[in-house]
């Protein structure tokens, strides 16, 4: 077992990205993710990387756009309003096939909202808050250790398919501390192969242009179809999930991220009280583990979706189980954090206990 270090989620995220080869970070302060840029500001120079506090979130994502085009592993992070501001730039990254990585440590919304933990940005993350047909590879950690290890996975997928990738967290995951175990060895970016799409040193090769547009009739459509094929492959091959007690359960509870930890406590409470309840949590939100849900839904009598928002995540569950079982909903928006006891009460009600 690797040595365990007690780390804050935001710091684990930053350290995880650096160990995964991140050498360019541009960001702008916003609670509850400030520890990410703060950590990067001293760690990046140690690794020969570059940290910059951009003048705005818009500037930050565009700095990423430039840096990513040189082949660097880049990162930005923010929280809800800041991520909204980055949507144009993210769409451009998707359109130019640039592999970027970013994190949204979600807070209560809409608007300025508050700085409490929330999950109200699920739609934005999974359905492309930006314009045009594109998706983002989205991972939803539920522990500080996952905050530390998922950046690597995000980079790997992003570079394999040349798509944007992100971590959707929240104030709980960003602010809490837990012992962390890294499940990979630090990656040295100097050992990466040369890419055939980067710009910056044209000597001895054809010149290259990184761009997201094509005004020639029909060309952009072809490009979109080609990109869509990559997304199809991602959907087929890159989804991940986690489950507990779903083989013999009558009621399937499902949540993602920090909320799944709370649901897990509730499920344990229910099991301890003799109720046949299981838990299914998606680890990737896009691609959504549809098959796993379809399978799991087969045997059950009821499904309970718990999210810290007002009916966003539930749509992916509905689209996956296609009416196989009735879906119940418990949503707490804008910083309302459900407790395990509260979920357990709902479980009992659904099961008629």
């Amino acid at each position, binding site marked *: 077992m690797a040595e*365990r270090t*007690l780390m804050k989620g935001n710091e684990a995220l930053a350290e995880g990205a650096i160990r995964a080869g991140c050498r360019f970070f541009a960001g702008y302060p916003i609670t*509850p993710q400030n520890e990410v840029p703060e950590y990067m500001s001293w760690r990046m120079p140690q690794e020969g990387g570059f940290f910059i506090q951009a003048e705005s979130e818009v500037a930050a994502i565009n700095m990423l756009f430039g840096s990513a085009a040189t082949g660097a592993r880049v990162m930005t992070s923010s929280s809800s309003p800041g991520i909204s501001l980055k949507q144009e730039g993210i769409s451009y990254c998707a359109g130019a096939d640039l592999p970027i990585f970013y994190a949204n440590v979600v807070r209560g919304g809409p608007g300025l909202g*508050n700085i409490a933990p929330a999950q109200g940005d699920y739609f934005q993350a999974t359905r492309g808050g930006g314009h045009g047909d594109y998706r983002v590879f989205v991972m939803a950690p539920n522990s500080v250790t996952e905050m530390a290890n998922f950046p690597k996975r995000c980079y790997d997928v992003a570079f394999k398919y040349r798509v944007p990738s992100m971590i959707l967290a929240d104030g*709980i995951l960003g*602010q809490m501390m*837990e012992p962390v175990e890294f499940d990979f060895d630090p990656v040295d970016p100097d050992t990466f192969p040369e890419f055939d799409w980067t710009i910056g040193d044209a000597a001895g090769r054809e010149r290259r242009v990184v761009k997201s547009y094509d005004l020639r009739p029909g060309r952009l459509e072809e490009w979109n179809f080609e990109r869509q094929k990559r997304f199809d492959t991602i959907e087929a091959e890159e989804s991940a999930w986690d489950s507990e007690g779903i083989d013999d359960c009558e009621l399937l509870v499902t949540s993602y991220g920090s909320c799944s930890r709370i649901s897990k406590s509730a499920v344990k409470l229910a099991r301890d009280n003799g109720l046949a309840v299981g838990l299914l949590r998606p680890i990737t939100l896009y691609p959504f583990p549809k098959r796993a849900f379809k399978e799991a839904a087969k045997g059950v009598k009821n499904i309970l979706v718990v999210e810290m928002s007002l009916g966003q995540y539930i749509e992916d569950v509905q689209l996956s189980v296609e009416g196989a079982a009735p879906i119940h909903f418990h949503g707490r928006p804008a910083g309302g954090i459900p*407790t395990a006891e509260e979920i357990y009460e709902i479980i009992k009600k659904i099961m008629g206990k």
Partner: protein
Amino acid sequence: MYQGIIVAGFGGQGVVSMGILLAYAGMVDGKHVTFFPAYGAEMRGGTANCSVIVAIDEIASPVVGQPDSVVVMNEPSFAKFEPMIKPNGRLFINTSLVSSRSKRDDIEVIEIPANKIAEEIGTLKIANMVMAGSLVDKTGMMAQKSLIDSVGKVYSRAKPEILKMNEVAIKRGAES
């Protein structure tokens, strides 16, 4: 063993660092731990608090809804957190600064003049350690040694004499 703890007080009373120390010590002790600070704008110039969980089993929810133990370092914290304690839980009161007394009969109340003890040892700054010593002792959630050994790790830049005072404070807390 499962202990959900809330530590609360003024900013500057070492509430957050006590929480981190407890989590660290729990980890050193071989337990599962989580630490979660209250953060945010509403904290400006006001109270500070954090949640710590120390448990034998893996910890699912890091949120402490109903604490097993609450440590209150100042008056406002008493009002806010005393009612939340689980039946049969424990309330640790720094009586140097808190004059309210609990009227609940379903909890155990431990009263410690932490500021006074700390002053006796040599610095007001270690009042939090006195409370930590008591908390670890009464709950038995980990070995006192784990707590003492962790002080040097968490405050890695502290001078030896300060570390020594921390140790004394923890022990005095456990005794009181």
